[in-house]
């Protein structure tokens, strides 16, 4: 179905990534945000708070991030499309409720505009050091989806995709921006509402009495109801059976955990979203995401000017990781080069997928600014030798 025109600010804008992300959420149909503003993500909720009264919806500034991350889940079960917005310190506080969203299969979007850490770290400066936290941060086994935009335009476009994926798979979806993408201003084109595809929640057609909250078909994603529609449902963070009731035994645990992992893993190929540039025939492939992909692009261009065969693989969806693609590329390469604003997080994943078929060269950076293109170029040259 198409986007609700009330939320779509059609036109050509010169806005930063934070504002564009907010517009993407509004276009996607997000009508409830709970948040505790934190630099460098504040502009997202600031804009949402000022726009939502005319669109029709609710913004609540909560007492903290723990409350924010649970308020959105209540609103999701009341039928709304929801998100919360934060940065590293807030994300750490939200981890308990990421697990709750995973086990209750509550569709929700977590926006993380990454800044330097650990702890309060560098409030106004960039990093990409939360990539593993969103994959593994809450306890127990579950799967998530994470996207990494590299421009304000993508903050708009991919935010719509993030909401659509949250609805399709009923998982927490992480929108992994960084301070530079969040605060960088560029042209953003917002199309008319009828050109924006949004995924509606999969509401059940079963009547009360027949509906069981965690019954599934081959998609492994259960249908949903919302509070107030006359269904008596029980939603819990305890291990539960198809009826949603606590069932704390190994059989129920096995069925539930396998399914909430499998519903992403069995669709992993469909979820691959990468941009490849000159990868075919390359001797070295640079793997990057977010703001680092733009800096890496400058290094790749310079390496090509020097006659090297260098490809660029940009991860748009970071989790699930495109493991098959990386595995298949590996044997023909001298090395992967992985620059990122952390001490080597996704580089581990590239290395795991490459499984010894080629080298993986990490180009770590502690954050606070971006790489110098020369630092990436140096590693490309080293890889090509």
């Amino acid at each position, binding site marked *: 179905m198409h986007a609700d025109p009330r939320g779509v600010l059609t036109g*050509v*804008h*010169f806005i*930063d990534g934070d504002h564009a992300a907010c517009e993407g959420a509004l276009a996607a149909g997000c009508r409830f945000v709970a948040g505790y503003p934190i630099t460098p993500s504040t502009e997202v909720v600031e804009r949402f708070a000022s726009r939502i009264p005319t669109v029709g919806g609710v913004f609540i500034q909560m007492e903290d991030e723990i409350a924010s991350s649970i308020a959105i889940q209540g609103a999701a079960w009341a039928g709304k499309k929801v998100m919360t917005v934060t940065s590293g310190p807030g994300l750490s506080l939200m981890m308990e409720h990421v697990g709750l969203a995973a086990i209750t299969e509550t569709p929700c979007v977590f926006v993380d505009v990454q800044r330097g850490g650990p702890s309060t770290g560098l409030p*106004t400066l960039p990093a990409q050091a939360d990539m593993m936290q969103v994959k593994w941060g809450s306890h127990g086994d579950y799967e998530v989806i994470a996207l990494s935009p590299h421009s304000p335009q993508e903050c708009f476009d991919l935010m719509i995709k993030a909401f659509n994926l949250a609805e399709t798979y009923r998982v927490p979806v992480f929108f992994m921006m960084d301070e*530079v993408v969040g*605060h*960088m*201003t*560029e*042209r953003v084109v917002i199309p008319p509402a009828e050109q924006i595809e949004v995924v509606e929640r999969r509401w059940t057609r079963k009547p009360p009495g027949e509906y069981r909250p965690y019954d599934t078909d081959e998609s492994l994603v259960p249908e949903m109801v919302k509070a107030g529609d006359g269904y008596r449902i029980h939603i819990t963070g305890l291990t539960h059976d198809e009826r949603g009731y606590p069932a704390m035994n190994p059989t129920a645990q096995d069925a539930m955990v396998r399914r909430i992992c499998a519903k992403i893993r069995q669709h992993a190929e469909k979820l691959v979203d990468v941009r490849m540039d000159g990868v075919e025939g390359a001797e070295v492939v640079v793997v990057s995401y977010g703001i680092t992909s*733009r*800096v890496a*692009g*400058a290094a790749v*261009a310079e390496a090509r000017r020097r006659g090297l065969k260098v490809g660029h693989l940009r991860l748009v969806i970071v989790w699930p990781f495109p493991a098959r693609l990386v595995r298949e590329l590996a044997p023909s390469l001298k090395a992967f080069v992985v620059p990122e604003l952390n001490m080597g997080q996704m580089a581990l994943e590239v290395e795991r997928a490459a499984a010894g078929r080629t080298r993986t060269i990490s180009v770590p950076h502690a954050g606070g*600014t*971006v790489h110098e*293109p020369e630092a990436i170029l140096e590693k490309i040259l080293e890889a090509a030798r």
Partner: protein
Amino acid sequence: MSKTEIRVGGLGGQGVILSAQIIGKAASIYDDKEATLIQSFGPEARGSACSAQVTIDTETIGYPYVKNPDVLVVMSPDAYAQFIPTLKPGGWLLYEEDLITLDERVPQGVKAFGIPATRFAEELGRRLVLNIVMVGFFAGVTGLVSYEAITNAVKTSVPKGTEDLNLRALARGYEYGCELARNSSS
């Protein structure tokens, strides 16, 4: 035109970020080029060092940071002192001449153009519009954005009800800039 990198610097409260935003918007939306804007500022709302980096190109911009600008626009002595060593030799220096005194740090071959922007703004009735005077001056001296584009960008960026004042400020800076540029080339 190939890539042009611009640094705008001044104090928080002078409208540094807005002026850079207007230049980027003019290029990106109304002149149909590519433009990126990166801003940095201290935690204080007023009086702290504040600067913005604008890149204008005919092609997609990868690396958005400005290390050695082709054009440096400065509105405070601190910003001048901080950024003058980074200006490319032969680049443009546009400065608030009542606030900044040039010295030997200006790189070789730099084309320097001063304007009493704050005084002009006061003459127009509000000191606040000094940044728009500077934006007009930028367009007049460098020709990097068209007057039509910068006019549209100002109109759509300033608070409603202040358009007339801001457009007068823009015109004042633009005409002064065109005149200085003409005199320097003749």
